[in-house]
């Protein structure tokens, strides 16, 4: 399947940012008709390698050749014109433009200079249909979920007639169904002879689609392997550079013992809360020390449930109460005052403040809760930040760096720390492990278990069903913007049953408590 001459080679690539050696003497090659996985921990240099390749960053040393000719792109547009099409890790589209405009921006179908809108919309619809997506292509992109936005970015990339397709963590917020669809298209493109570079932290996806694997560690090349010749455990060892037993524990798949709640009053009580167009009225009670998972497909309303409970969106039906609050919760500030934290899935738009430092980003929620007149003393800030930089192994471990200079996974950890610092009573985690590497993911899951053992309640949303099942005491199932069931996570519950409930479950099946 693989051609004998690489379409793309990178040799001796080095890239240093002030104080950080992101890449050091890295070689990489890509053959036509292969899917090549680029693997490594958070901050290993994967995205940097891609940005150097497409000219977002200049290099300090090294050469890039495309079809045997040395190239040096000055930016994504030029790279795309030369046949290198890229979906960057952070979906980088214009949320205030329509879906169709986003797909064709910069290369709109024209006649006599005028944009042919009808043609553009038709082609956009066709393109999305290939991805099994049926959207109103003239709606503003911002009205869709992050996962849909990610699919639109992919649609844009595959429409460019490219020889090299680069996908940096395209599946980080997709569900199994979308992933399968994406893989179908990737295989199709591969069979047409297109070379695909694929970055992900999901090992099973790597083994499901990649022909070849290149591993980076700390900005250096570890090696290039055929997927068939590299068992999963040695891939992980190569990525982390040591044997780690956390990962074995991750495989144990032990169920969580159900918490005894006998008669305990709920910490948060959402009663018939809903919002027209977002999610139908639902009732959900969350108790101290309980982990409630939210399962459902893309667009089923998981994020909307979280946002309503936190008050990020205003409910037009029902109300959320906490045991301590005199009045129902309505705004994020109310919710935070009542000890609720919400870690959004969309870290770029709703999470990080890019220019501020890691330290400032971490203390933001705590500072907001204290009010501006009571600044957190610098010593206390440093202690807190130090603690979480270590606990979540954030790298580089320099709290004064602007957070935008961190790799995607490390930014995610900073956000998590922002909420952990506030020591909430209920922590709402929307895709908290999105873009986080295997080792750190295990650490975060362990942390969730620890925190809930310590009495913190958690509302846990993840596209990965196994993760939800591993951590939750109870699973609320969403379908078509409706909460259709709440299942106790006992021995009888498995991924299959949850999937069946998602697909067809009788509404309100087995409503517990």
């Amino acid at each position, binding site marked *: 399947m693989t051609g004998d001459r690489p379409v793309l080679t990178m040799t001796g690539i080095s890239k240093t940012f002030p104080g950080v050696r992101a890449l050091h003497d890295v070689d990489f090659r890509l053959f036509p008709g292969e899917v090549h996985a680029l693997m490594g921990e958070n901050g290993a240099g994967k*995205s940097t390698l891609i*940005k150097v390749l497409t*000219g*977002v960053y*200049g290099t300090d040393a090294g050469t890039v050749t495309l079809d045997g000719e040395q190239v*040096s*792109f*000055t*930016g*994504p*547009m*030029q790279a795309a014109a030369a046949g290198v099409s890229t979906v*960057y*890790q*952070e979906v*980088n589209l214009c949320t205030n433009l329509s879906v169709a405009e986003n797909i064709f921006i910069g290369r709109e179908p024209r006649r006599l200079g005028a944009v042919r809108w009808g043609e553009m919309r038709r082609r956009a619809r066709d393109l999305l249909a290939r991805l099994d997506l049926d959207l109103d292509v003239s709606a503003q992109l911002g009205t869709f979920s992050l996962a849909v936005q990610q699919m639109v970015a992919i649609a844009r990339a595959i429409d460019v007639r490219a020889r090299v397709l680069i996908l940096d963590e395209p599946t980080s917020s997709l569900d199994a169904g979308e992933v399968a669809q994406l893989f179908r298209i990737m295989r199709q493109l591969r069979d047409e002879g297109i070379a695909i570079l694929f970055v992900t932290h999901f090992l099973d996806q790597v083994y499901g689609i990649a022909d070849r694997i290149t591993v980076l560690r700390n900005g250096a090349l570890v090696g290039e392997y055929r997927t068939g010749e590299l068992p999963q455990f040695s891939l992980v060892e190569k990525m982390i550079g040591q044997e780690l037993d956390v990962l074995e524990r991750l495989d144990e798949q032990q169920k969580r013992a159900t918490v005894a709640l006998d008669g305990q009053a709920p910490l948060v009580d959402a009663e018939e809360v809903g919002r027209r167009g977002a999610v139908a009225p639902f009732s959900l009670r969350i108790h101290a020390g309980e982990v409630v998972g939210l399962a459902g497909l893309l667009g089923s309303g998981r994020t909307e449930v979280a946002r309503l409970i*936190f008050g*990020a969106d205003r409910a037009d039906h029902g109300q959320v109460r906490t045991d301590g609050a005199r009045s129902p919760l309505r705004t*994020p*500030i109310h919710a*935070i005052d009542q000890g609720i934290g*919400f870690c*959004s899935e969309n870290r*770029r*738009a*709703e*999470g*990080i*403040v*890019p*220019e*501020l430092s890691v330290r*400032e980003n971490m203390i*933001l*929620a705590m*500072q*907001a*809760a*204290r*009010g*501006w*007149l*009571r*600044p*957190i003393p610098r010593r206390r800030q440093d202690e807190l930040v130090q603690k979480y930089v270590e606990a979540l192994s954030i790298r580089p471990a320099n709290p004064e760096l602007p957070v*935008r200079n*961190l*790799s*995607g996974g490390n*930014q995610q950890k900073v956000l998590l720390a*922002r909420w952990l610092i506030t020591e909430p009573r209920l922590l709402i985690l929307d895709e908290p492990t999105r873009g986080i590497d295997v080792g750190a993911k295990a650490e975060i899951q362990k942390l969730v278990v620890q925190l809930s053992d310590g009495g913190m309640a958690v509302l846990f949303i993840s596209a990965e069903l196994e993760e939800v099942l591993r951590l939750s005491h109870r699973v609320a199932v969403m379908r078509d913007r409706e909460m259709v069931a709440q299942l106790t996570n006992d021995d009888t519950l498995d991924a299959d049953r949850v999937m069946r409930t998602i697909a067809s479950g009788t509404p309100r099946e087995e409503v517990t408590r």
Partner: protein
Amino acid sequence: MNTVADRLRPLTGHRLFWPALVLVVMIAANTVYRPGFLAVEVKNGHLYGTPVDILRLSAPLILVALGMTLVIATGGIDLSVGSLCAISGAIACLHISGAADQNSPATVATALALAFGAALVLGAWNGVLVAVIGIQPIIATLILMVAGRGIAQLVTEGQIITINSGPYRAIGLGSFLTLPLAILIALAAALLVAAFTRRTALGLIVESVGGNAEASRLAGIRSRRVVFLVYVVSAACAALAGFMVTANVSSADGNAAGLWIELDAILAVVIGGTSLAGGRFSLSGTVLGALIIQTLTTTVYAMNISPQTSLLFKAVVVIAVCLVQAPAFRARFRRRRRGVEPGPAAPQREKEQVPA
């Protein structure tokens, strides 16, 4: 050569390096052109000389630019500050001109309090339009920029109010410990704003709102309050500047007082390294920026450049300052020197923004 450049990196990388360098170059150029430029002498306990004039005259601009810095840091802009200068100056002068004893400190104090109060109300109006109603800042403050001149005219009844008040004149022309009182007031205001923002968490919160408003809201920041507050602070600064401008000439002219000062203030903020997109702000940069602009204005006068060309001259210098500060421009320049072909798209790099 490279090693020298490397060793200077920490210095050249400093936020204030470029504005400071520009100021130094401008002063040097002036001194070459007019050797007496830097001369300062003491007469009856006052300092006299061009540098002292520059400091004194820059005081209103520094004040306005301080408030503007906070507004811009939240991602907004305040076009109404010039009109606010005129209104506050007019109210103060009107009160003094009607008083029996124009030299009485009590009269002047009441005048200042009245005018200051009015400015706070107008600042609150701006704040409500932007933070509560959600009108875009440029439009919201444009309303008062235009209407404010009318209000000032109403206050002065279309006349130029002339006063003869020693204490009031001192705000603009007086001196304290040989230094111009105006610059001392401006510096005190700068220190106050600095303490207000950096000793509390206000600065962080302003930067956070300007850097990512939605993320800030979800982190529990009361963005509206903060945005409201900065427009009030900006109006307060403008009022002080209005007192100085009118005190300098002992008269209030609703048309001319503070005319175009909003534009100079915005320039000062940008030259000082605060991005118009909001986020990180630098008060010391703003003060430097205001000094640069005033030095430039004084230079233009001193060189007898005709008023028409003087604006052009100013524009060229401002463009130059903004260019040397732009990382994209410097990167391109550096690459040229190393002899690596810069692509045609190089300057667009900043725009393409493909983070993490």
